[in-house]
């Protein structure tokens, strides 16, 4: 933490984590107030994993995320305006209100989408990595998945293809200890996940997922390896979601001591104290927080003022070819 650049990077990461935390806290409250529809998975507690990993990416790189994708996508640069408008179901949302929380995407930033289907991002990640090699582009794909996704078939299929074809992909398992209500030990027969991942012929590292610097450094090593032709890596990032599985789930199955212990290891507090130890002043950190608070307030305000989609907007974006689209849609009687 000596150099100026490092400090600047860490400050940026801090800012990004603050942004996510505030965004998700607001989303939670707005959802509880009935302002946001659908269902929604909050990643508060996991910010260091999202931000540490995404900050290891460069321009042109790709990202696939999960149903719990607010943090991942904002960490990658998704604007909170378009994210918030999307959650609100507004026409200028990131996905024109067609995707919602589970499908936020920004192809311009290489965000190939959150995904409502557990494990479904992994094959897609293999694909953008394949394009990268095919087109000789040196881009890397970061593939987030939850601990629960571990046991889905595509995980195995994708990890096999990744080493087989030496693809530039980094698999980051966001291990928050539970798949919905089920703790890892109750669904995972595999005693040592790193050994399992290594058996695919890729380096596998465990990292403290609440330490943004550690995540960043670990994922950066993997990203650089991938970019220089070294192939895929696996990172197990241990973290925790503070809330239940989705908003509405009280998370009753988890021992209260466990929740308390993890909350005591708040990734934002950890990062903050590293920054303070490193000489950053309290005021500049508070400034970041209030700037982000303000930006969020503005995003919410903008979102509230924004227009709803027209009903007929539901009929567009099914196909690119407009003639075929009209024919495929058929008569609309509504």
């Amino acid at each position, binding site marked *: 933490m000596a150099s100026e650049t490092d400090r600047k990077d860490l400050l940026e990461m801090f800012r990004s984590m603050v942004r996510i935390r505030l965004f998700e806290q607001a989303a939670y409250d707005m959802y509880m107030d009935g302002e946001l529809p659908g269902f929604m998975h909050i990643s508060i507690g996991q910010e260091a994993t999202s931000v540490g990993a995404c900050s290891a990416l460069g321009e042109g790189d790709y990202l696939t995320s999960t149903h719990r994708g607010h943090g991942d996508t904002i960490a990658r640069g998704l604007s909170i305006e378009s994210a918030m408008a999307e959650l609100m179901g507004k026409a200028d949302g990131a996905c024109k209100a*067609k995707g*919602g929380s*589970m499908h936020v995407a920004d192809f311009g930033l290489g965000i190939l989408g959150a995904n409502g289907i557990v494990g479904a991002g992994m094959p897609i990640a293999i694909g953008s990595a394949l394009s990268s090699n095919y087109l000789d582009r040196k881009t890397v794909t970061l593939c987030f998945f939850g601990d629960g996704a571990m046991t889905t078939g595509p995980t195995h299929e994708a990890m096999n293809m990744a080493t087989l074809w030496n693809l530039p992909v980094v698999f980051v398992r966001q291990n928050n200890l539970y798949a919905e209500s089920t703790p890892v030990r109750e669904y995972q027969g595999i005693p040592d996940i790193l050994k399992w991942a290594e058996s695919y012929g890729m380096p596998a590292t465990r990292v403290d997922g609440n330490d943004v610097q550690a995540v960043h450094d670990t994922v950066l090593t993997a990203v650089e390896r991938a970019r220089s032709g070294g192939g895929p890596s696996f990172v197990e990032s241990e973290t925790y979601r503070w809330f239940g599985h989705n908003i509405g789930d009280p998370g009753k199955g988890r021992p209260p001591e466990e929740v308390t212990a993890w909350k005591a290891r708040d990734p934002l507090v950890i990062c903050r104290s590293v920054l303070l130890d490193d000489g950053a002043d309290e005021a500049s950190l508070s400034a970041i927080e209030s700037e982000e608070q303000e930006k969020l307030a503005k995003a919410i305000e903008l979102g509230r003022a924004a227009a709803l989609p027209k009903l007929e907007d539901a009929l567009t974006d099914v196909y690119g070819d407009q003639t075929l689209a009209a024919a495929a849609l058929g008569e609309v009687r509504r």
Partner: protein
Amino acid sequence: MTEILYREAIQQALREEMLRDDTVFLIGEDLRDPWGGTYKATAGLSPDFEDKRVLNTPIAEDTIIGAALGAALSGTRPVAELMYIDFVMRAMDAVVNQVAKVRYMSGGQSDVPLVIRTQGGGGRSSAAQHGNSLEAWLCHVPGLLIAMPSTPADAKGLLKTAIRLNDPVIFIEHKLLYATKGEVPDDEYTIPFGVADIKREGTDVTIVAASRALLFSLEAAEELAREGISAEVIDPRTLVPLDEETIFESVDKTNRLVVVAEGAERCGWTAEIAARVQEARFYSLDAPIQRVAALNVPLPFQPDMERYVLPSVKDIVAAAKRTLDA
């Protein structure tokens, strides 16, 4: 009769059948308490039975169903759950190539006492991957039986029958029905497959619908009644086998038919009903059969757009009137 929730009807059916036969067990993701299933349909069961009777699984739909099949072929009677019918896409091989065909491919060597419970349907703003109605796919597969109850009483009676049958049953609940209420008989009862229920009698137009679309159809019938139009509303309750006689008889009386389902229109379930009725009752029909289904687009997230895409009471009323104006 006691009024209970649809969710409770499912719970009761499971409990009663588990008590009756100790080879019956539940297998699926997050079924055990305190979670008790995503829509709480299995809540309260894990504390009251041996651990093995309610089995939480990894996220691995193909293997959940394949394993349930292997179990059904070797002495137990699993009731498997696919948390959302959308996730059947991860288990399509197990459901279709294995479960539905094993009796046939083996020349009838084995019973297949397996129920796959799942829930479908939109209306919760859950977007394109969590709100589908995929019964048409499954009806297309010979070897499966398909139930799709609309009321607590039907849900309970049909699920008990399903668990006792020795053929594989796809049992499709609806996420927005779990919290609906209805009267359920106090005594033990079952409801046979293949027997439709006329949920409302009428003389001017027949409306056929299952699951939540049936509730919409009843509302539409109310509205039509206010305009002096008498609609008969038929709930097939099981899609395979289908009680087509009841539908045919109704059409012979009303000479008009509207078919309603939540799935996308193209190659959906409404097409099958329309095709069959036009063939069997060509000369009874005074107007073209009207289909009311979801538009041919993925389900959008935003609630108004979603409502627009899904069939509504208004759409049913309009369709019924089209048959009368023809």
